[in-house]
């Protein structure tokens, strides 16, 4: 498993070179944005159950066949497995966002996931749809653009200082996209 720093080190080692000013500059931005990153991770983890249940609910609303007899979210046992998997995927994405590198997500979550789902008969398209709803939801939570209208009774806004989180949002989005393309 690597993080932003060890990723830089591994690629420098491949060239037997030290990390000089140029390479260190990008790491300094990780350090400068450190608090934002931790807030972003916190935004995901603190709202994890909301993000996951919302995504699975949304997936089922768009395709109600899933909870009818013979559907992949019927009966409760399989619905529970679905919620559990959503949480696992979100958890590995939160690790990747904390580390600033996708290797933990790739190695420990996505490696073999598609093959496993195919073997178990899990519909990949539905799983991908749930992940893309999680992406929208997580983006809203990191950016704090979530609203009463979207959140309903579970609406909750974190009280952090406003700032420009666009680079973190796009980084987090890239991890969700990674999951979706791994399932596609």
């Amino acid at each position, binding site marked *: 498993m690597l993080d932003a720093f060890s990723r830089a080190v591994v690629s420098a080692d491949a060239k037997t070179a030290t990390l000089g000013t140029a390479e260190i500059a990008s790491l300094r931005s990780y350090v400068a944005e450190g608090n934002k990153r*931790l807030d972003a991770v916190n935004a995901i983890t603190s709202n994890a159950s909301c993000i996951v249940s919302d995504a699975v609910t949304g997936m089922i609303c768009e395709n109600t066949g899933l909870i009818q007899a013979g559907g992949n979210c019927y009966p409760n046992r399989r619905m529970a497995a679905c919620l559990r998997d959503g949480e696992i995927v979100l958890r590995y994405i939160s690790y990747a966002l904390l580390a600033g590198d996708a290797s933990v997500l790739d190695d420990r979550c996505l490696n073999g996931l598609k093959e496993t789902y195919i073997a178990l008969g899990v519909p990949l398209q539905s799983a991908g749809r749930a992940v893309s709803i999680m992406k929208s939801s997580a983006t809203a939570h990191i950016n704090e653009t979530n609203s009463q209208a979207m959140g309903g009774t579970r609406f909750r806004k974190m009280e952090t200082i406003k700032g420009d989180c666009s680079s973190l949002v796009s980084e987090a989005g890239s991890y969700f996209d990674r999951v979706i393309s791994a399932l596609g």
Partner: protein
Amino acid sequence: MKSVVTTVVTAADAAGRFPSQNDLEAVQGNIQRAAARLEAAEKLSAGLDKVTKEAGDACFNKYPYLRQPGEAGENQVKVDKCYRDLAHYLRLINYCLVVGGTGPLDEWGIAGAREVYRTLNLPTAAYVEALTYTRDRACAPRDMSPQALNEFKSYLDYAINALS
């Protein structure tokens, strides 16, 4: 590669939980110290050749017998290899400073070093002397800020302890 973030993530993953407040605090502490580490890494990288040369010269000054026939520095090729090894250790220290942990030194420098040196009949005392000279020679604020120097010296000490 062991670093604060990977350690925290490994522990969280083993327990199957999201990163907790404790985990985020640990990473936060690491980030706060990062400025000094990165400064030290940058300065070391910029002066690597000079530092290597001074360290190697100090080592051959203290142990002139190394240049005699049959010893580790009997000809220029072998002497060059000594300097190369020193540059190698300093490069790994540069990596450690970037990562904020001893992972690179452990994995790429220390693991198996003792066995290799015994097989090749190389004296580790010479490396210890060179790295000790570097440690004592470095000074703040001439070379880098005091906090950065502190980080740099702690990794030099780690390498010295591993070789002695």
